[in-house]
Every structure is written in structure tokens, then in C-alpha cells.
């Protein structure tokens, strides 16, 4: 009797488990990721997790390709006036929003006005303040009149934070809820922290999508995402943790995609906090830290040591930068010059698991700085607590992963211009940095701009307000039958429009 019961139980269990492996056979891509979108309003979102959904639904005027070049999106072409005081964009014709409304210049005006309106609390508003007025000579031409020459404006428009929304939605105040964009995918449903359903937009102006839709599942634990990939229950996944992603390197059944990120890992010294206000102390710290070692220990070598600017068009050989080679003698000498041979205690804040490597980075820095008698005290904080203290400038030093931008001005004006919103976080400013930033903003010639920002990087490395460590990779993983995906440094998954499934 008992045996029969046991046999029945085992049989039942086998049947139960067997049903799980039944794979959906249609042309819908099943994608998994750990973090969910925080909201549907493209203008107020700042989380990377939000962009990964909204960039499929909404489109900006221009976009970035995998080399961070500005490419057409809703605008087909554009030109700055010769004196740099206006930007004219020619809009794509025959584009419709998901609700059927036609896209015209009126929508661009409504969108920019919404972003500039402070009560919207738009995240990227500060990047568009040079737009003084907008002219619309016809339905498909928009002219931004600028209060001052602003070269970075064009690349700054290439973000979901400047996605074009329907003017009718702006008027009715429904932008945050309708998800009415022009993009390749239409939002069917969003159950926060569970699942999001998208269907292909048949009227999209571009080529594709080649799939019928996307089902985005939230699997909070990245190890479980890995398991789901191996079990074949998902097609595609976004991964954050290098320690999890690298487990796939030797797995022949799963394809791991890596793109060098433009976001950077950095050890932020706050020069306003003594004794970090002494140049020699900051430089000593810079000389004492082997950046490659931090990368190897915290991130298994997944990435590369970086200069302040992380985008390919502005990179600089790191040998040109101050003390990128570990030099303990010089570090000790600098400490002696500052009268700090005996060392001091440095408090370092690190966010818990954000990035996943934060704590290991802090610990490695702790070990390295012990060699010049600096005692590092690590304070591990929950993310929001960390952000709160970081924003208030309430710390001596911090390990951080900061997002990159395609344009150096947009990327760093917030920190290194004395008027920047986050200058209090950086805790350092001087006239040279202000001048270099202003020059870089106004200059339109690419070669001259490169020179300005090369000087900017050399100067920053020498002043050592921050110790730039490394850039990691943006990881995605997919089944071998998923083809056509192109990884990008901004982690954009817009190329899912080109993906084909050959199950």
C-alpha cells in the first residue's frame, strides 16, 4: 500500500515537473531581468531599468548607434546654424503614435515645453535650458532657438528622457499612464515586479520588429536568471553582476554578449573634507592605488582601467594621466610633503550591492591604502541611504558607479562646473575646470573639442578629486537561436527590433 502511494507521488511529481519544460512556440521573445521599470513617464525616469522598457515604446528625436554616434530617429536630419545659436531638425513624415495620432512638430513643441516646465520634474531638464524658444515653420520642421551656442544639446536629445510624447497626452496630463509612444513596441500590460507584455508595432517606421512581441519577466535573483537560461525557459536576459555573468563564459549552450560600458566605477574623494583638501594627500591616494588590481579583485578583470571620459571618441591613453601606474614611493613622498606620514583615518561609504562590486572595491582600496598608513573605514549602506548621503555631500570618500553620457559636457558639467547641480557631491571646483567646461560646450569643431577635453582629463587626473577606476561591461545573454542583437555601451536593447528567433 505504502509503496503504491510513493510510486503515485513520484509519478505525479514527474508529470508536474514535465509540464514546466513545455516551451511556448510562438514568435514572442521571453526576456528576464532582475529590476523592473519604476514608472511609465519617460521624462521623469532615471533608473536604467526604466529606460530598458521605455526605449522600446518611446522614441527621441535622435538616437545613438553602438559607437555612440548620433543617428536619425524621429528627426531625419538636422543642422546647427553657423553661429551655433539655433538647431534645425527635419522630422520624419508618416509616423503615428500607438493611439493612431499623427506625429508632427506640434508634438515636439509640447514635449520640450513639458520637459522645461519645472512642475513636470523632468529628469534631464538641465540639459535643455539653452532652448530659448521653438519655431515650427511647417508641420515637419522644428527650429530650436538657443540662448547660447550649445553643441552638446544634440547628443543630449538622444535619450528616453527627451522622448517625444503626443501633444494630446500632455494637454490631458496622462503622459505618466498611457505609454503612448511612436516606438517599435506597444505596451499591452505592466504588472510591477512581475511581468510586462509588449506587442510589435505593425506601423513602426523602421525595419522590423521581426518578432511578434516581448514578454519581460522580473526574476529578482540573477542566479535564478542564469538557471532559467540554462533550463531554456527564457530566450534573453539582462545581467548586472559580473560574478554571475562570467559563469556563462564557458557555457557553450548560452551566448553571452559584452559591451564596454560608458558608466564608470570611481573612488570619489571629497576634496572639501580635510585632509583631502590637500592636493598632495589626494595625489598620494591616486599613486597608491593599482586600478587594475581593483578591477581584477572586485570584477574578475571584467572591464578596463579608464580615464575620466569613457566614450570611445574622447578616450586618452592612460599613460598620459597622472600616476595611473602604482608608485608607492611617490605616494609616501607626497604624504610626507603633506605632513601626513603617520597617516589618517578615511571613512568610505559604499552602497549595498549597487553596483554588486561596490563592497569588494572598497575592501581592495582599503588594503591598498593601508600601505601608505591610511586606515580606511568602510560604511556599507542601503542604496537609498547611500544616495541620500551622497547627494548631501555627507561623506569623506565613496565608491560609486556613475552613469556615462555620450557627450563629455553633459556627462561632467553637473560635477565639475562650480555651478553644477552635483558640484556639492564632487566637493571640488576651480577656475581651470570652469573654463575648460565652458570652452567644450561652445566649441563645434570635433578636433578642437577633443583637445579641450583631453586637457580636461589630464587636469582632473592630476588634481585627483576622484580616482577613476575602471569601466565594466554591459551584459546580456541569450539562447543560440536568438540572432541579430547588437550590444551597445549604453546598454540599450533597441536592437531587439532586429532580432529573429529560430527555435
Amino acid at each position, binding site marked *: 500500500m505504502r509503496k503504491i502511494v510513493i510510486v503515485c507521488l513520484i509519478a505525479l511529481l514527474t508529470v508536474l515537473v514535465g509540464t514546466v519544460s513545455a516551451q511556448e512556440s510562438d514568435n514572442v521573445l521571453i526576456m528576464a531581468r532582475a529590476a523592473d521599470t519604476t514608472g511609465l513617464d519617460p521624462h521623469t*525616469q532615471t533608473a536604467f531599468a526604466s529606460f530598458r522598457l521605455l526605449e522600446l515604446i518611446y522614441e527621441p528625436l535622435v538616437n545613438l548607434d553602438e559607437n555612440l554616434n548620433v543617428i536619425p530617429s524621429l528627426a531625419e536630419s538636422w543642422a546647427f546654424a553657423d553661429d551655433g545659436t539655433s538647431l534645425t531638425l527635419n522630422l520624419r513624415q508618416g509616423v503615428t503614435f500607438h493611439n493612431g495620432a499623427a506625429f508632427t512638430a506640434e508634438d515636439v513643441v509640447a514635449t520640450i515645453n513639458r520637459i522645461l516646465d519645472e*512642475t513636470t520634474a523632468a529628469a534631464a531638464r538641465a540639459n535643455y535650458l539653452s532652448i530659448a524658444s521653438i519655431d515650427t515653420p511647417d508641420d515637419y520642421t522644428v527650429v530650436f532657438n538657443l540662448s547660447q551656442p550649445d553643441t552638446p544639446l544634440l547628443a543630449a536629445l538622444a535619450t528616453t528622457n527627451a522622448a517625444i510624447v503626443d501633444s494630446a497626452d500632455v494637454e490631458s496630463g496622462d503622459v505618466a499612464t498611457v505609454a503612448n509612444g511612436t516606438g517599435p513596441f506597444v505596451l499591452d500590460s505592466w504588472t510591477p515586479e512581475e511581468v510586462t507584455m509588449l506587442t510589435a508595432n505593425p506601423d513602426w517606421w523602421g525595419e522590423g520588429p521581426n518578432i511578434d512581441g516581448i514578454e519581460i519577466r522580473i526574476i529578482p535573483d540573477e542566479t535564478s536568471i542564469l*538557471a532559467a537560461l540554462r533550463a531554456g525557459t527564457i530566450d534573453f536576459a539582462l545581467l548586472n553582476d559580473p560574478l554571475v555573468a562570467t559563469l556563462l563564459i564557458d557555457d557553450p549552450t548560452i551566448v553571452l554578449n559584452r559591451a564596454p560600458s560608458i558608466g564608470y566605477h570611481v573612488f570619489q574623494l571629497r576634496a572639501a573634507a580635510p585632509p583631502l583638501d590637500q592636493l598632495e594627500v589626494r595625489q598620494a591616494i591616486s599613486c597608491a592605488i593599482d586600478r587594475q588590481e581593483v578591477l581584477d579583485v572586485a570584477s574578475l578583470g571584467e572591464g578596463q582601467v579608464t580615464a575620466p571620459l569613457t566614450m570611445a571618441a574622447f578616450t586618452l591613453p592612460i599613460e598620459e594621466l597622472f600616476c595611473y601606474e602604482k608608485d608607492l614611493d611617490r605616494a609616501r613622498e607626497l604624504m610626507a610633503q603633506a605632513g601626513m606620514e603617520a597617516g589618517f583615518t578615511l571613512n568610505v561609504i559604499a552602497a549595498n550591492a549597487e553596483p554588486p562590486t561596490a563592497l569588494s572595491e572598497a575592501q581592495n582600496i582599503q588594503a591598498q591604502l593601508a600601505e601608505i598608513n591610511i586606515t580606511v573605514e568602510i560604511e556599507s549602506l*542601503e542604496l537609498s541611504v547611500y544616495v541620500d548621503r*551622497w547627494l548631501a555631500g555627507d561623506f569623506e570618500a565613496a565608491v560609486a558607479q556613475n552613469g556615462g553620457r555620450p557627450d563629455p559636457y553633459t556627462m561632467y558639467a553637473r560635477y565639475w562646473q562650480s555651478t553644477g547641480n552635483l558640484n556639492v557631491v564632487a566637493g571640488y571646483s576651480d577656475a581651470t575646470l570652469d573654463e575648460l567646461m565652458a570652452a567644450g560646450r561652445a566649441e563645434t569643431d570635433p578636433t578642437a573639442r577633443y583637445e579641450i577635453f583631453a586637457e580636461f582629463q589630464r587636469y582632473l587626473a592630476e588634481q585627483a578629486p576622484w580616482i577613476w577606476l575602471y569601466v565594466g561591461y554591459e551584459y546580456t545573454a541569450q539562447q543560440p537561436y536568438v540572432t541579430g542583437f547588437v550590444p551597445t555601451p549604453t546598454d540599450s536593447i533597441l536592437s531587439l527590433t532586429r532580432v529573429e528567433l529560430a527555435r
Partner: protein
Amino acid sequence: MIRYLMQRIIAFVPTLLGVSILIFSTIRLVPGDAIVAMLGTEAGMLTAVQRQSLEAYFGLDKPPVEQYIVWVGNALRGDLGLSVRHGQPVLNVILARYPVTLQLAVMAVTIALLIGLPIGVLSAVKHNSIIDLLGRLLALLGLAMPGFLLGTLIIFVLSVYFKILPNSGDYVSLAENPLRNLSQMIFPAFTLGFSFSASVMRTTRSAVLEVLAQDYVRTARSKGLVERIVIQRHALRNALIPIVTIVGVEIGYLLGGTVIIEEIFALPGIGRLLFNAISQRDYALVQGIALFIAFNFVVINLFADFIYTVIDPRISYAHDT
């Protein structure tokens, strides 16, 4: 009995009020608000006007005391407020997730009892034998192995060696597809149930051991009852009280959601909901869930009290004065 029930229900009110004040103030004392949780470091780019309009949106623009009074007033009318993250009434959000947690708790406890009770009784009866030793070893393993380890191990073994996975973020409810639902729930329930079975086993063992030493068991045996009847009717029945107590407490905990197991197995239950609500500083949702869990706990305790009178007629809540 009715009077006792009334007393307990009246005692609810201060408990829940206490819980609500505690939760209301703790979540606000934690640094970082909903704005920082949503915007991260970009919150530093907001102008004063932008910040004010976000504060108004998240309901942070009024003084905390006023916020609390409004909230309690609404809660008394059954309105727990609106979850900013979900854009839905808090109660709806909670009730949508509750079946998952309830089912998980019931299945876990069932599994724990199925494993723990027989082994516990067997261990007590075959006191100090090899069976007892093995049983105690199993209990020790269950207590020592944390759920996240066992859960991850199960997922690892299933996915790597058997290429199957209980759940990859596509949870279906029992009503939608019972077979699939059970296949998704059985492993997390086992993970939870296994460690809980250890405490069931230990409690059962010691309770039965104690009862077996009682005079009435000796009497039962000496009047010639079969050993099976002695164990079932006399020993186990009398040993049930402490077992019911720990099961009651455990269900109470489980109904509060098991954050870790729900995270690992990607189950959309109360635990994960609460965890996310805290990370996002979704104040209304955190308060709602905490109140809901407290309410659950109190009801379960009441239910356990009631079960006592069924198991042991000597216990009575009737007032004898």
C-alpha cells in the same frame, strides 16, 4: 467563548494601532524618501520647484502627523491609500499577492507536518535507537541549512542536471492552471517546509517522550491496549498542544511572506511586495502590508487558541467567575 472572542477582538485595536504608529514612523525615519528611491543620484539634479511638485505627487508635502491622521482615518474606512509604484489601491495590490503567500504557507506547513510528525513520533517511540539518531540528524540538517542555500541548491540541481526550472518569472495561479501552479510551488514549499519540519520533529519528539512517561500511558499499556492505539490516542493526542502552538506561530510568520524564498523562486507574494515597497519607499504600501500582516498574525493566534479547546477539552475560555 463569545465573551473571550470579544475581549480578544477589542485587544486587537491597540495592537494594530501600535503597529501602525511603529511602521509609520520607522519607514519615515529611514533616510532617503520615495523621490530618492525613484530617481537615485539624479534626484540631485532637481530644482526646488521640481522637488516640490514631486513631493506633492508622493504625498510628502504635509507634516507627518497630519499624514498619519489622514491615513488612520482612511484606513478605518477600509481605504489603505494608493500605492505610488503600482498606481492602484494598496488593498488591491496586497490581495492580488495574498493567494500566493497563503498557498505557499499552507503547502509548506503541510510538508513540514508530513515529514516532521511521523519522524518525531518514531524518534520518541524508538528512543535512542538508530532511527532516533537519524531522525535527529535530519532535524539538525533542517535547522542548520538556511532556506536560501537549499533553495539555490534545488534550483541549481534542477536546472543544470535536469534542465527544468520550477519557475522563471511566469507564475500562474492555482485557478489558471493547477498542474503548472503546483509544479511552481512544490519546490519553494519544500524548501520552507524542510527547515520547518525540523522544529516540528523536535517538538513532537520531546512532547511525545514526555507524554510516554506519564502514568496514564502506563495504565493504557497495562490494560492491554495495542501499542499503536496507545501512541495514537493517548500519546500523540496529548502531545499536540505544543505542536499546534509552533505551527500557529510559524503560519503567522509565513503569511508575512518569506522574502528570500520568494526572491529566489521569483514568486509574486507578500514578502517580495514588502521588500520592494521598502526599497522604493512606497510608504502607503509598506504601512498597508505591515498592518495586514499584523492582522493575520492576530487572527492566526486566535485560531490556535480555539484549536486548543478542540484538542484538549480541559481548556476552556468561558469565564468561571
